[in-house]
């Protein structure tokens, strides 16, 4: 009787192990094949918070990614405007220093447009960016 019990257990364990392996491999395989695109988005809060803590590299990267995926709307207005303002002013200062008036004027126009959309945070962010760009 004792021998029969042992025989039953090894088979059950083997079946259980193989069933788990099949499940794991199947999940990995199908999740990779049908994973779809990297559709994560950063969200307007992530972008704006990055701007506010002066993590401009992260802010620009996040805004670019969300925009490339077509994310837009009222919630994104201020964050996108803040990033646009930042980029426009960086280029404006640079082109002005290089006496490229045409491009500087383009950048200035973009800054003015962006500032209008920045809402209440416009003054704070603009001041900080100005401080960053003036040595």
């Amino acid at each position, binding site marked *: 009787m004792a021998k029969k019990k042992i025989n039953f257990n090894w088979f059950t364990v083997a079946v259980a192990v193989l069933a788990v392996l099949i499940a794991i*491999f199947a999940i990995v395989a199908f999740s990779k094949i*049908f994973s779809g695109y990297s559709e994560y988005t950063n969200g307007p809060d992530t972008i704006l918070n990055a701007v506010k803590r002066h993590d401009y*590299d992260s802010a620009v990267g996040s805004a670019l990614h969300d925009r490339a995926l077509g994310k837009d709307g009222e919630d994104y207005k201020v964050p996108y405007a803040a990033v646009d303002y930042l980029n426009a002013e*960086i280029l404006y200062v*640079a082109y002005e220093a290089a006496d490229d008036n045409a491009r500087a004027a383009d950048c200035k126009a973009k800054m003015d447009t962006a500032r209008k959309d920045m809402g209440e945070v416009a003054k704070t962010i603009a001041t900080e960016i100005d401080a960053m760009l003036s040595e």
Partner: protein
Amino acid sequence: MKCPYCNNNLNIEDKYCPYCGKENKFAKEHQESMEHYEADYTATKQDVIAETKRFQTKTIRITILAVMAAIAAAFLILALSADDLSYSRREKAVLAKATQHKAAINALMEERDYLAVDEYMDANHISYSDGFDEYYAVEQASSYYSYFYGNILQILSRRLDDQEKTYYASEEELLTEIGKDISKINEACDLGEWYEEKGCYTPEKTAYLEDLQNQVAVLVSAYLNVPLEDAGNISAMSEARIIVLLEENYNGEKED
């Protein structure tokens, strides 16, 4: 057989001779042998049946395990090939919208939105697609421009007081990275004949790349203190020379 007493014919099963009535001792021995044989036969038969059942059970179990192992192996192979299959699936989807993507990229190129070009190609998995070979130089230059611009932002952000704890790279490391990024941009703008034949350097794309290099020079001059004239020549410099130029000027240690 013959009766040992009266010598008449006798059957082995007869317990007594039908002629002389004497006891047939062979019958008893025969009976005992038959009973023993029958018992052996029954026992052997039961053993064979039991053994067959055990064998069948074992065979069934081994078959089940073998089939499960084969299924597991098949899924393992599928999991190992999943990246290739996923890539194929993704590539198919990207190529299905090739015209749309190219129109979007061309529009961003016209606006000279270098960052957006890079991000669009990255987010839509176009960067490594076979159907967009003509955009390879543009993609490479825009991609390294993104790294370059990000490093410039980091350099600028450090000017605000609370930045020390945010960034892990030193200024020297950032300048080295910027130098490498610029060198990669320069490479992308002159990849060679094969890329030219693929359409990487049409007049529109060449103009885009030249403007990109010009913007790099302007940013380097404005924010890394490199004189505009030197910055303008940066597209013709080696990586090492660019890094030295940046380090000399940014730290204000330029040799006369």
